[in-house]
Structures are given as C-alpha cells and as structure tokens.
C-alpha cells in the first residue's frame, strides 16, 4: 500500500480513513436514502483540514500536495464517495483560484476555502456537447463596470451549498468554446439561481443542479486569469478532476473488493465457501488488479502535479483506463455476491450506483483519447 507514499501522505490517508469511520460511516446509508446534504460532516471535514489540503500555508492550507489529496479522497470514498465528491468539487474551485488567481483574488477567496468557511463549486459543463454550444450556453458580455453573465451551467456539483463558484463562460458567441473565460461568482450574486436538484443514480448527498444566470453583473475583478485563459483553466482543472475522481473510483472499488472477499469466505455453496472456487477467485483477482493499477496511475499523475509538471496526459490515461475498468469493479464484485449482492439491504448496490458517477466521460466524451493522442502525435 505504501508504494510511492511519503510518511506524511500515508498519515493523511490514514486520518481520512479514521475520519470516515467516525463521521461518515454512521450517515452514509441514510444519506444515500434521503439525498440530504451532510452539512455537519462537511463542517467536520473543515475542522480536520480536509478542505485545504493542497492549498498554500499563507492562505491557511495544509500545503500537503496532491498525492495527499488523492489519498484522502480514496479513503473517504471507501465509506462515502458522495462526501468525497463534495471535497473534490470544492478542491477544483480552490485549485483554479490558487493557480490562476491574482494576489487580491487569492487573498479574498482562499483563506475562506481553506478553512471551509466557504465551500467551492466548479461549473464548466452545459447542456450542449461543449461549453459555448447550444441555446442556453453561458455568455459573458462586457459592461462598463465589468461583466454580465447570461445562460446556464449544467450538472454543477455543490450547487446551492457552495459559497462561490468558478464558472466558465464564452465571451464571444461566434467563437463559442474558443472564447472561454473563467469567473469567480459569489453564490449571493443577484440574478444567480440554482435549479431543482437533479435526481442522480448515486453519490446522493452531493447536490447536483443547474446554475441559471439571469444577467448576473460582475465586477472586473471577477475575471480569473486572462480573458483567453478559460479553455486552459477548464482543461487543466478537469484533468485534476479526472485524477481525483479516479481516486474516488478506486476507493469505492477497493471497499467493494474487500467486502466481496469477506462475503466469499463466509458464503457456503456446494458444501464449501465460494471463496474456494476459482471462478470467484478470478473475479476477485481481476478487480483487485484493476484497482491496484488504477491507484498507481492516479498517484503518478498526482505526483506530477506535486512537482509542478504537466500532468494532463497522464490524467487522461487514468480516466480512459477507468472508463473501461471502473464500473466493472462493481459489476464483478456484485456478481460475487449474487442475488444477495443485488439487494439494497446489502452494501454493494450503493457502491454500484456511486461508482458509475465517478467514471463518467463528461461531454465531450472522447476527451481522454483526444488528449492522449494529441501528445503522441505532436
């Protein structure tokens, strides 16, 4: 388990595990049933410094880096991938501001994000295949004072509970996705409304909704990075999302493999535990292998981030690998548990529904292949 990890990173993983046991285990099943946002658990996450893990010390962050982040996310996900989703989406907004913000923006936003006084949300997708395409694409128009935003961001996680959003909008309707710019938008901004919560298959408790911008007026200082930086901000932040979501997938998968192995040891058919059947051993061995390889891949990508190296191709590779193997971790572990495993009275169905939400290929769904091939063919 400790391969590639420093003592600090391992400790952070362990403390996430302990945290999950104390704060998440008691609520995970209920949260899945009710879809209730776990406000108390998020406060506890803040108190335990999980919301500022990789942020710089001067802003109150733990400055522990991205391997630590994915260690924490994997270990939280073993118990509640929904809560991990809240952490991940928050981290994306914090990442974008730390990476592209000017000193004023950082000072304004990061201390509150690091301490968890403010939760972050990152909004890039729209209902069309790429941002900037489609009738309700978010458009940013220059005004004398700054910017006016009109349109809709879709499937925004932490919608309604975040205090600030990093939002991608087009500045030139004719140029579409090529004219993306990023903005920091406070949740209290006038004209900003949160749509009805989407009914998700899993990861329940992490709210997902549209953000509807009806002429939201922003000051000039709301622009994050340069006016032409939006596409790069979106791509790099989504690459971090791929790595962090991979950690969620692996956490869920690892929990499932361990549960299925324990089940196989106790379930007796044909006069012996099914764990003695090679057919069952093969299912466990294959899922454990995929978990392990994915973990190595995502840690390597996180290490590149820690070193300030480009990591987008490696992130896309992890994404692509898990697009093929991620959901299968649960398809095959549920199979080990057969009819019992299909019953919602057992734990794996929740994990099955959750894992599907961590391996999604967001529009455009061919992004991993495109990213990897672009590097190879450059």
């Amino acid at each position, binding site marked *: 388990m400790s391969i590639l990890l420093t003592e600090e990173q391992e400790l952070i993983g362990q403390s996430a595990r302990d945290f999950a046991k104390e704060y998440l285990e008691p609520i995970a099943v209920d949260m899945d049933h009710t879809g209730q946002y776990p406000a108390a658990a998020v406060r506890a996450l803040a108190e335990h410094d999980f919301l500022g893990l990789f942020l710089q010390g001067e802003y109150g962050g733990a400055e522990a880096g991205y391997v630590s982040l994915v260690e924490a996310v994997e270990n939280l996900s073993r118990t509640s991938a929904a809560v991990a989703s809240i952490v991940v989406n928050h981290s994306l907004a914090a990442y974008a501001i730390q990476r592209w913000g000017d000193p004023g923006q950082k000072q304004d936003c990061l201390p509150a994000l690091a301490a968890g006084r403010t939760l972050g949300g990152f909004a890039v*997708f729209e*209902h*069309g*295949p790429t941002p900037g*395409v*489609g009738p309700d694409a978010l458009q940013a128009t220059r005004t004398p004072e700054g910017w006016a935003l009109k349109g809709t961001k*879709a*499937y925004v996680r932490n919608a309604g509970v975040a205090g600030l959003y990093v939002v991608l909008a087009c500045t030139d309707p004719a140029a579409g996705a090529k004219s993306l710019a990023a903005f920091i938008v406070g949740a209290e901004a006038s004209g900003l409304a949160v749509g009805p919560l*989407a*009914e*998700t*298959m*899993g990861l329940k408790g992490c709210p*997902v909704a549209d953000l509807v911008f009806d002429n939201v007026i922003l000051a000039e200082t709301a622009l994050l990075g340069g006016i032409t930086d939006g596409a790069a901000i979106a791509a790099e932040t989504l690459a971090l999302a791929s790595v962090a979501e991979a950690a969620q997938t692996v956490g869920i998968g690892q929990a499932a493999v361990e549960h299925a192995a324990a089940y196989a040891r106790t379930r*007796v*058919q*044909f*006069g012996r535990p*099914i764990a003695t059947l090679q*057919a*069952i051993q093969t299912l466990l061995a294959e899922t454990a292998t995929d978990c392990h390889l994915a973990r190595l891949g995502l840690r390597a990508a996180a290490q590149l981030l820690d070193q300030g190296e480009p990591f987008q191709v490696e992130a896309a590779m992890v994404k692509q690998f898990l*697009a093929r193997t991620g*959901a*299968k971790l649960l*398809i095959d572990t*549920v*199979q080990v548990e*057969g*009819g*019992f*495993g*299909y*019953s*919602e*009275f057992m734990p794996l*169905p929740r994990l*099955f*529904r959750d894992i*599907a*939400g961590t*391996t*999604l*290929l*967001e*529009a*455009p*769904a*061919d992004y991993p*292949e*495109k990213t990897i091939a672009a590097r190879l063919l450059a």
Partner: protein
Amino acid sequence: MSILTAEQKQIQAEATAFVAKEIIPFAAEFDRTGEFHPYLLDAARESRIFAMAVPKAYGGLEYDALTQAVVLEAWGYGCAGMGTTLAASVLSMDSVLVAGTEAQKRMFFEPMVRGEIGSFGLTEPSAGSDAGNGKSTAVRVGDEYVLNGSKCWITNGSYSTVFVIYALTDPAAGMKGISAFIVEKGTPGFTIGTVDHKLGIRSSNTVELLFKDVHIPAGNLLGKEGEGMKIAMKTLDMARPAIASLSLGLAQRALDECVKHLQRQYPEKAQPGQTLQFKLADMKIEIEAARQLLHHTMNLRDAGLPYSAESAMTKTNAADTAMKVTTQAVQLMGSYGYTSGIAKLMRDAKIMQIYEGTNQIQRLVISRAVLAPARPAVAVQKGGN
C-alpha cells in the same frame, strides 16, 4: 435483423405498441416507488400476453419460442422490471409444460388465460447457485403432501395465484430427493415474507415465500417424486433465453437513447468524432450478435433440437452485452446519463448476469459441454445399409 414471418412481425409490432403505451410512460415512476402496479395486469389481461406460452388447447396463444423471444425483447426495451414480471410468469408455466398432466395443465394454465400470473420457486437462502441444496420439505400424508420451509427472491410472489414449488420429498437422497409441486395462493399456512428492495428491476415484485404445514393435494405433484431437479433444469433451459431477450431489449434501448442524446446534442451537420462513432458501432455489433445467437437458439428449440448449451450461451452473452452496453451508454452520456432514466438501464442490466443461474453457472454448463469427450459425429450404422 432476423427473418421473421409476417405473423411474427405483426406480434412484434403489437408488443412494441403495447410497451410504448402501457409500460414506457410509467416505468420510471414504478422504478422510483419500487412498487409493482396491478394496473399492468389489467392492461396485459386485455392483450392476453401472459398466456403467450399457453398451448391453444388450453385457450392460450401458443407462441413459438422465437415469437416469445421477440415479445420479451420488446418488454425488456420498455422496462426490464415489468419484463421480468412477464418472463417469470412464463417461467412458472414451463415446469408444468415439461411435466404436467392434463389436469395439472388445466389447473395452472386457466388462471394464466384469465390474465393471472404465476411464480417459480426453487431458490432458498442456502440454495442459490447450489440449487439442489434447499431445505424445504414435502411429506406425504395420506393423499396429501405437507409442505414446510421457505423460498427466497421469488418473482411475482405477492401477486401470483399459482406457484411451482420445489421441495425435498426424500431429504436423505439430496438432489435426487427433490420434487416439484403446484401450490395455489391462499392455501392455509402459505404466506408471503419479506419483500426485497433491489438495485434494479425495482418494479418487479421479489419476495420470500413461507410454508408452515401447508397441505396440498397429492395430485399437485409434477412428474414423479425425485424428478424435481430434472424438471427444474429443463425449465431453466427454457427460461434462460427469456433473460437473453430482456437483456437484448435493455441493450437496444440503451443504444437508442445514447444515439438520441448525441443527436440532440450535436448540431445538425456536426457529428460526434470517430472515437464516439466507433463506440456506438461496437455497441451495435454486440447487440446484433447477441440477437442472432438468441434467435438461433429459439430456432433450435422450435425445431425440437437440443439447445441446452445454446440456452446457457445466449443467456450469458446477452446478459454480459446488456451490462456492457448500458454501462457504456451511461458513461457516454455523462451527467445526463447519470441523472436520467438511462441509469436505470444499467441497474436493471446487472440482474441479467445473476438470475436464472448466474453467468458463472452458465459457464460451468458450457465448459462442461466443451470439455466433454469428443463423440463420433455420425453414428456408425449397423448391418449393410
């Protein structure tokens, strides 16, 4: 596409229309509530579809196996939960078709023709893949059997009026001591236990059956004492292609929804790139291949040829295809897939790999056939001619 007769095409069109009108509009709601709605029975009763496997001699529709597969695919397309309701009822009849006497067939099929449904009860907590390891017993007392024990994961249990139940008449004989019985709803001592809450096919009713000193007439014994396992295996041979049919319907639905979504997303002249196009092509290839294996298996059955191994292969292949295609569809549709009815298809597909014998049990059956010592392809003729 397979070559269907004009009559089969007609029946397919009717089933598709039925599904479009009575199932698709309600499937999401019943999935949410997890409740089977009796209205479906009223609608199905009118269409007489629950009697599609019942011989004409008993007032049924007597569809051939291929036609049944086509109907079940349409139901799987609409909602695999409701499709399971229909398929399970057909499955309960199969045991009676295999081993029933005239009187037993009348007793079982007449309710089906009236629009009632049946259940097949083999599985117990200790007898899943190890189907012969059940503990329920039936003891002969005079001209009755007294049934004790329980069954689990019985589809339609709360709604069925007739059941085929497997129990040990000779516990010492193990698998060879299992017998099959027709049991009617309302027989004293026969009650419904816990209702399961499942990952998918949530609108289909899955319950525990409890038997406490349930007296059933000796005339309800199907076949002879000790023939239960043989009857169950033949029943499952007949039933597995039904799962393949539902699986196919699911997979086809996932592909159609995926294509619809992409076409909605992309402006008229733009097309998704080759990476996506080829994923769609792969989905189509797997669905069509699975459909051909299913239809071939049904042709074998309709021709009276052996089809046991094909039955296992078609179930395994179609269930795996449904799982793969629905998962791919949810992934390709991203958050839209995850927050819409498409996710239901993926949850529903998972059961296809589990029920009517897990795909591991099917592979056991298939690998045994593969590894069986080769036999001469043509029997050596005796004598001169």
